[in-house]
């Protein structure tokens, strides 16, 4: 089974994401509450794809991504940002930071797994 690592600071969103990805998406799910925690845990896990919230206290999404990339095991792991505001040019900006795509918040849990798979497969196709 493929593993998704969800890095999200809000507990309720953590639960919803996990349930949606596990029950509907048939993913293995690991959840972290902060960028720091993610950097620590990611060493020992080996996620196939990472869902990374942009707006987090202390270490935001982009900073976390930078830190994660320092780990050679995660240097090329697909990362999808989750963010509330998306202006037209911002998707490109996030991609330049090293993400393969963006999922807007609030996300529909019913379609979350499909969205993840779609972005993931599009990135692979390139």
């Amino acid at each position, binding site marked *: 089974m493929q593993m998704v690592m969800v890095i999200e600071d809000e507990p*309720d*969103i953590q*639960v*919803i994401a996990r349930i*949606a990805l596990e029950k509907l998406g048939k993913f293995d799910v690991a959840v972290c509450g902060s960028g720091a925690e993610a950097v620590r845990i990611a060493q020992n896990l080996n996620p196939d794809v990472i869902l990374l919230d942009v707006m987090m206290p202390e270490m935001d999404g982009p900073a976390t991504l930078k830190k994660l990339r320092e780990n050679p095991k995660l240097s090329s792991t697909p990362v999808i940002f989750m963010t*509330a505001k998306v202006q037209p040019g911002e998707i490109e900006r996030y991609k330049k930071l090293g993400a393969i795509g963006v999922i807007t918040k*609030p*996300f529909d*849990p*019913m379609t979350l797994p499909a969205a993840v798979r779609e972005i993931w497969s599009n990135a692979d196709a390139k």
Partner: protein
Amino acid sequence: MEKLQTLISNNEEWLMSRVLGYAQDLGYSKYTSTLKEAWRISISGLSASLLTALETYRKSPELGPDDDYINNPVTAFGIAEAQKHRERGVPLAMFLGLMKYYRQSYIDLVEKAGFEFEYQEKCCRFIDRFFDRVEIGFCMKWAELSRDKAVEEQQNANLLMTNEKNKYLTIFESIADPAILLDQDNRIENMNQAAVQMLNKGSTPGSQYYRLLQDSPFTREEPDEAAASGSNYYKGLHITSLFPWIKKYLETFARGGQEKSVFEREIKETDNALFFEISLARMQDVSEKFRGIVVTLHDETGYAQTEKALKLALKEAEVQRLNWQAIFRAAPVGIMLMDEDLKIVQINDVIRRDFAGDNRHIIGEQPGNALGCIYSLEDPRGCGYGESCRECLIRKTLLEVARSRETVRGREVLRAFLIDGKEVQFWFSISAEPVTIDGRGHMLVTFENITERKKIEQMKNEIVSVVSHELRTPLTSITGSLGLLRAGAFGDMSEGAVDLIDIAKRNSERLVRLINDILDIDRIESGQSALELRPLEIMPLIEQTVDASRGFAHKFGVSLEIGDRLPEARVVADGDRLVQVVTNLISNAVKFSFPDKAVKVSALHHGGSIRTCVTNHGQGIPEEFQSRIFGKFAQAHSSDAHEKGGAGLGLNICKAIVEKMGGHIGFESEPGASTTFFFDLPEWREQENGPAKKTAAGGRELHD
């Protein structure tokens, strides 16, 4: 005798004064001409003859017994003079006596010259013999004329004199300005008709003069009584009894010794107050026969009145100017007057107070320099030359108005200024109005500080976005959880549970929509979501929207169709927003349609606009609701919210969008039958319109 010739030629003035002096001292001037000219002519003539004699006779012209004294050019002048004076009735004794003193004058001249004794003797001798000849010739001529002739000459002379007198009397009376002759005691000797009329007593010309001949000056009334009784007879009156104020002028004049004194005076002796320019002139008399003063009064009332009126008008104009200046200066917004080159001509107090804190040079400067705009500091040449100045919205606005001569209102600009050494940033709203002053194009520019308003706006926006975020976040968790449950993430649920979850889910979704609508309308109305206006074809947009709505309509058992088409018709609009409007109208039409009916969408020309119509067959809009229909949270029946799932903001949003695109929205409804909602947008034709892309009317450009 050259020296003598020269002496005589060069001393005409001296000789004239000399003989005049003798005449005055000895009393001849009583009978002689009063004008200097006459004396000069005599001297001139005598001198000419004397010079001729000096040419003709080498030595002195001694008198021989057989000499011809009549036909001699030397004596010709003297003889002519004799004849003239005879005709005037001058006695021989008097003439000859005076002639002696002419002689004496020439002798005096020679003696004064300081020649050496012998030469002087020679000259005196010559002069003596010359004058002897003149006198002899004169006497001979005199004797020639008969006594009768003398009388006739006398009569003629008298007649001439009478005529002369009459002529001058006429002239005196005809002078338009009042003239008063004063004798040497400043009593009135005569006054002309104009003077009498000025004193508002009627008179006939010459009345003052002829009264003198009839009445004795010593028998009439005392001066003051005369004036009080209103009599016309002023002769002999002291001038100060008529014009008491003239006393000091006369005293000054007497002391001063000038020939003339001029001053201005208001005289209220008459019924109307009159302004006069008054002059006092000493009577021109070289022989001191008439000593007195001529008083002339020149009526300047008209002039004075004009001057008064002008002063009043100027004062009035000055008051007006000060009033307008006060208004201009006190206006609560900053106002500047600029010329077309953006040079500041005039500013009001707000500008000076808010910007000129450190006594900046303002008048004549470009706005950036005058106000201390930080962009103007970029280049040493100041405002307009810096990098940022190219995109400066202030300069752009002003140049636009200067060029097009059209008003621009309410451009909002955020800018930093250097005031009192500190950098201060604030928002202001700039408007510019073309105005013509002194025939040249200028601009009236207002700067209104809207920083407070902007702060409040920004605060409100922050609140709105924070609040909406805080509202939305929990809602997404709610809808998310409910959705997962409903999808069977934790197994199937009983029917009752499903119903309850559906209720919760539906209402959560309604809340989300409501929050989104509120945010949307706020953004549209505050101009934050600037519409991207482009010319686009209306039909493809309608078709696309209709297609997208078919699924929704199907749920209500309503079919969608497109009626009248306008292929290739174009409007200037924001595509996404237009879709939003059409979708909303279709959605409403479907929701309120009778089942199994069709909703029709059409496009047609209406005036210069393209009208898009959405028509349904349904319950229609109740009359009492029609006026509120485009308002916020407007719903005909409270139950609709429950059934139809709306919050009542849809039409409000549509109206805002359509109007921001320069259009108009409306409806026609027949309750129980059908309803048509329509909106008009100006049609776009290729050749007429300019640049295709621009921001919506009233849209503001955010800070640059």
